[in-house]
């Protein structure tokens, strides 16, 4: 078991492409995406019923060594700033595969 950082990002689904692009640019290739997530936040309720991604969110989970944390956070920060949502960081132990 190795100490890892887990970063969870929840934001508007339309941002998924940007997030993936930025992660790749930052050299992060390990992440998991849950689509069709809904929720409520500062911008009201996102009910996922709009025939478009506009009111749907996406959840992205990134597990990385602590040394990569900053890179990930810097990639995500501007997106959250402009488009809203949350970014949560926590400590986990990763099973070395």
């Amino acid at each position: 078991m190795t100490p890892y950082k887990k970063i969870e990002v929840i934001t508007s689904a339309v941002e998924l492409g940007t997030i993936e692009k930025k992660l790749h640019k930052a050299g992060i290739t390990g992440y998991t995406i849950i689509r069709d997530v809904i929720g409520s936040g500062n911008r009201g309720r996102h009910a996922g019923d709009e025939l478009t991604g506009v009111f749907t969110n996406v959840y992205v989970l990134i597990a990385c060594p602590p040394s990569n944390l900053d890179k990930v956070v810097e990639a995500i920060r501007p997106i959250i700033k402009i488009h809203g949502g949350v970014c949560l960081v926590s400590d986990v132990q990763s099973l070395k595969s």
Partner: protein
Amino acid sequence: MSTDLLVANLLSPPILFFALGLLAVFLKSDLEIPQPIARFLSLYLLFAIGFHGGGELRHSSLEAHVVWTLLAAIFMASLVPLYTYYLARLKMDVYNAAAVAATYGSISAVTFITADSCLKAMDLPYGGHMVAAMALMESPAIIIGVVLARVYGKKKEDSEFQWQDVFKDAFLNGSVFLLMGSLVIGYITTDNGHQSLEVFSKDIFKGVLSFFLLDMGLVAARRFRDLKKLGWTPVFLGIGIPLISATIGLLICRLLNLSTGDSLMFIVLCASGSYIAVPAAMRLAVPEANPSLYVPMALAITFPFNILIGIPLYLKAIEWFK
């Protein structure tokens, strides 16, 4: 005759199912159409309307009035966002006004399709090139909306923004692409090909439309809540802008001497607002605008207005003006 028309429209299954969807939300029923289904139905409608439009284009020669109609369509798609912006700007900030402008400059395919159903029920034909006009009118307003936001908005450094993304969203978003593609396929495939898709693309069409409008009713009614906080502005704009656009559209139709069917379709394109392609593009390119404003305007005000009252009204106006 005009009350007949209104009543006939209101009693057609698609409209009744739309109303049922509205009612479901107002009564707090938990009726829900699974979202993948709703998306599929909307793809189906674009596919079918495009395919048929293409099929009809094959049998019509490319006459002058077709070219003129298409040019007029592009003209209106560029004009509508401009006056809409200045109108909206009276009550909103730059970003929201730009998003509203893009919304009303673009079109609603489902409104078009509902008008098609209405014309079919009255045996009034319209040309396949109107589908091409629809495809052409989806995108320009998106570009114009983004330009307005960037010209009038705060200058800022953002490395994120790229014009090529905006163009991609405008011209290659799924709905524009499928509509265009189906139009072209309908045009180039053989008569045999049309025959083999007859039942799938024609006979079940109105049933699918009814089901889809049931979902539209649900979605539109849920968006009413967003509007409550916003006062009367969205309501006035959501009905006023379509009426202005319809009037200008009607004048152009007279000018070009279009048939009743073509005229209705042209006016419906001018008067409808987009709630699929535009919001997705605006959310990315003008994130400062609030989608809980411009989406409900198009979806919960303009769309119901157009399909319930607008279509018969426009028809009557066309006949009156003849």
